[in-house]
């Protein structure tokens, strides 16, 4: 076999691997934040509250908050996350004002103010439920580095894949940390302490 042929053969072997790596890199959602890289997460936004009136992020100023993106037809992770935030806030023992819990739908097509309002009322504790026009939701998702994608399900209504982290902000409105669903309550509480102290 000539050198040229060997080279060609090697390239043929390498090409699919390179293509695979490229696909993986491109598929990586933007929510991945690597340490040391200053990334602006959050910022001012305007959405719609569960009362149907405009909600400006200025209303969140001066108090720490935990913000989570999900959808009301989400059976597992969304109620689990909100229930956990409600429980941790109770454990905290500093009242409902110690930090606010904010839920933003990534499914504005099905979740209007009424749906979001009923859903957030489920957790026996004040939860701010927000929706908006598809364009407003897209804008806020971009600001928070949130990924979401509709997934059709055979024989059932569509589901939505979405970023599962809760974003924590201090009273100064600055992003502090995220809580992942697979992190234990101890870690979550320690992070919540960072925004409330």
């Amino acid at each position: 076999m000539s050198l040229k042929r060997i080279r060609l053969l090697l390239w043929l072997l390498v090409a699919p691997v390179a293509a695979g790596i490229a696909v993986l890199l491109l598929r990586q959602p933007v929510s991945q934040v690597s340490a040391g890289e200053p990334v602006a997460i959050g910022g001012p936004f305007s959405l719609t509250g569960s009362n149907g009136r405009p909600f400006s992020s200025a209303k969140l100023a001066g108090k720490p908050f935990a913000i989570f993106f999900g959808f009301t037809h989400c059976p597992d992770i969304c109620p689990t996350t909100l229930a956990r935030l409600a429980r941790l806030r109770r454990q905290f023992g500093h009242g409902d004002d110690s930090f606010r819990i904010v839920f933003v739908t990534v499914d504005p097509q099905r979740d209007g103010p009424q749906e979001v309002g009923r859903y957030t009322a489920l957790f026996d504790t004040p939860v701010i439920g927000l929706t908006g026009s598809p364009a407003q939701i897209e804008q806020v998702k971009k600001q928070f580095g949130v990924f979401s994608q509709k997934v059709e399900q055979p024989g059932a209504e569509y589901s939505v894949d979405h970023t599962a982290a809760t974003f924590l902000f201090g009273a100064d409105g600055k992003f502090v940390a995220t809580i992942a669903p697979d992190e234990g309550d101890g870690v979550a509480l320690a992070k919540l302490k960072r925004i409330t102290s």
Partner: protein
Amino acid sequence: MRMFFAFMALSLAGCSPNKAPEIAVENGWARATVAGQDSAAAYLTIVNKGGSEDRLVSVSVPRAKMAMMHASSMDAGVMRMRAMSDGLPIPAGATVELAPNGTHIMLNGLTTPLRAGEQLPATLRFAKAGTKAITIRVEEASAR
């Protein structure tokens, strides 16, 4: 001596593997829902005390138009939920837990909202052990 033989017989019985799967289902629960929320997740624990693998092939909950097994999985920070069309394997001797943020029974098309304190009848069908009738307890949404 008689005692000794009885003991031997018992231990032999213990050693010879029981070939059939022996399925027990425990702790079925679901979170309460509100009107307009037509889907929910149910969680439970399946114990296989037998000597061979079984498989949970289908679930039916009359309260929902459809019940199916779903796997939630994290992929680069994104939660993805998919139907498990091949069912859920229950290996010999294993305890398989369906718990929040993981594998669950997805209830779709709830006829009425689930209220805390309710007991929902459900039927689980296993490939070998056949059907098991259970109840799913509805808990407050913020219970756990």
